[in-house]
């Protein structure tokens, strides 16, 4: 393999070409153009005027008053804060439920383990929109949860528990959608865990908690870190869950970006928020790369 004939280099370039060109031209270039757009001026009905302006980024923190002076505004910062908060809530809920489940699966016999992993993988690959929509039927007015209350007369006509269109509904939606991404990497770590170490801990009179916190947790840390980031990152930029379950008032970064491109038609501002979201994601991915470098490459699918 060391010395390739000369035409092999050409052949390699030709083989790599299509994939690299497509991703480069239709992914890298668009993101770069969007970055440029975020520094342009907005036209009233979508599109941009080609003159430099930092307005889009200023708009995040300040609102422009009628006399053209700026006033500090928290509206968009609240949306960023909500995105982080809900992504964190979803991550923590996924971890609390996901770890014990992954532990349980890792201790099943091999055949059963694969069955469990298949069962957890299936919903993840089915349509996110449809799965989120299902929660409207569960949490919504007259939904599955409210029905028994109504039947028992605890909820009158026109009354509602108010589960939908809330931070709670979004958090449930995010947890539901991304929890397979928590279970799978933790399972991958736990499956490789050498149980003789756990036994050694017990033999040396460590308590259950000590064995757990000093042996199990450190050894499954790569899986836990991977799982947390795999849930946190998509939750941070989620669109479907806040859009369907949060309604118009509970915006997150993803819905804010979409809103700027559709209803508000402020492309530079939408681009700026998208760039900020991308920056957050890149920062977290770099953290992940650092964490993963120490550990072996994680096997994601099984």
């Amino acid at each position, binding site marked *: 393999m060391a010395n390739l004939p000369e035409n092999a280099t050409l052949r390699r370039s030709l083989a790599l070409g299509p994939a690299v060109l497509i991703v480069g031209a239709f992914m890298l270039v668009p993101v770069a153009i*969007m970055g440029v757009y975020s520094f342009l001026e907005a036209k009233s009905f979508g599109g941009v005027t080609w003159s430099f302006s930092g307005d889009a980024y200023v708009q995040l923190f300040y609102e422009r008053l009628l006399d053209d002076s700026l006033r500090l505004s928290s509206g968009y910062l609240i949306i960023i804060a909500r995105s982080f908060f809900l992504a964190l809530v979803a991550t923590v809920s996924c971890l609390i439920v996901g770890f014990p489940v992954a532990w349980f699966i890792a201790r099943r016999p091999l055949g059963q383990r694969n069955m469990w992993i298949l069962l957890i993988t299936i*919903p993840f690959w089915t349509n996110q929109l449809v799965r989120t929509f299902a929660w409207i039927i569960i949490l919504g007015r007259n939904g599955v949860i409210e029905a028994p209350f109504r039947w028992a007369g605890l909820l009158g006509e026109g009354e509602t528990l108010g589960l939908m269109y809330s931070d709670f509904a979004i958090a449930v939606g995010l947890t539901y959608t991304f929890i397979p991404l928590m279970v799978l990497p933790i399972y991958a770590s736990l499956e490789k865990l050498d149980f003789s170490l756990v036994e050694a801990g017990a033999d040396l009179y460590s308590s259950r908690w000590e064995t757990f916190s000093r042996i199990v947790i450190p050894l499954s840390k790569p899986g836990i870190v991977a799982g947390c980031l795999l849930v946190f990152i998509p939750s941070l930029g989620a669109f479907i869950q806040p859009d369907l379950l949060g309604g118009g008032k509970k915006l997150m970064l993803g819905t804010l970006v979409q809103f700027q491109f559709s209803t508000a038609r402020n492309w530079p501002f939408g681009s700026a928020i998208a760039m900020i979201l991308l920056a957050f994601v890149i920062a977290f991915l770099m953290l992940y790369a650092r964490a993963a470098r120490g550990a072996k490459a994680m096997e994601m699918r099984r």
Partner: protein
Amino acid sequence: MTAQDDIVPAAALPGTKVRRAFGEVPGLKTLAFCFLAFLYLPIGVLVAYSFNEGNIVMVWTGFSTDWYAQALADADIRKAAMNSLIVAVSATAISTTCATLAALALARGGAFRGKVALLGLISLPLMVPEIVTAVATLVFFSSIGLRLGLGNVIIAHTTFCIPFAFMPIRARLEGMDTTLEQASRDLYASDWETFRLVTLPLLMPGVLAGAMLAFVISMDDFIITLMVAGAGDTTLPVYIYSMIRQGITPEVNAVSSILLLFSIAMVTAYWFTTRQKPGRNIH
């Protein structure tokens, strides 16, 4: 699941007492089954209500399959489903071909400068949040004035399908033994013959898995299509979204159920394709 679940085969191994004492936390099994219920009940509820007779989803009036009949007869739904299929088939074909070539070049092309960077570039669509990809693609198409109708959607889908098709193909290539290819060359087969008669047949399960993954991802995509597709180029998920927006009727549930069943079938098929059969291991 039967009572056999309770018997941990590991009990036959020495030292199991300790393992059981530590590993078998009471209630863990209950939690795991509750978790499965949490994963599948919403899907079950959605499908169950698609058989509701009345036109308000959440008020059960009786069993009926009329909504399926209505959904299947609806011209708009059929058009959207057709668009979804056209986009998914085209995107799968193009992305799988590109991904196969790229995977071959990266796995069999030796070491070269920029390999890691190229690998990073190909997996870029996995890292960028979907909403960012969606608006960036919208900005890009509008700035260069590209209006190909469904073509725009196909381009966008092909782009994000490439890494999904690439992953299983690359995994397969790296697990493959190169001795057969060497043997073929030693027996004076040309490079093309080696590729066609040895490498490609061995690689086929990976290619198939990659294509299936790309197809599922394309069929399920919603956000990117929502932003990129023009009025007549709506795909099924985008159409479902607009239906949800207009008010939920069991018809939405019926269409959604069809889409769900389709994905579940695909993923299960994918699972059994990538499962290595005992005795046919290539290592």
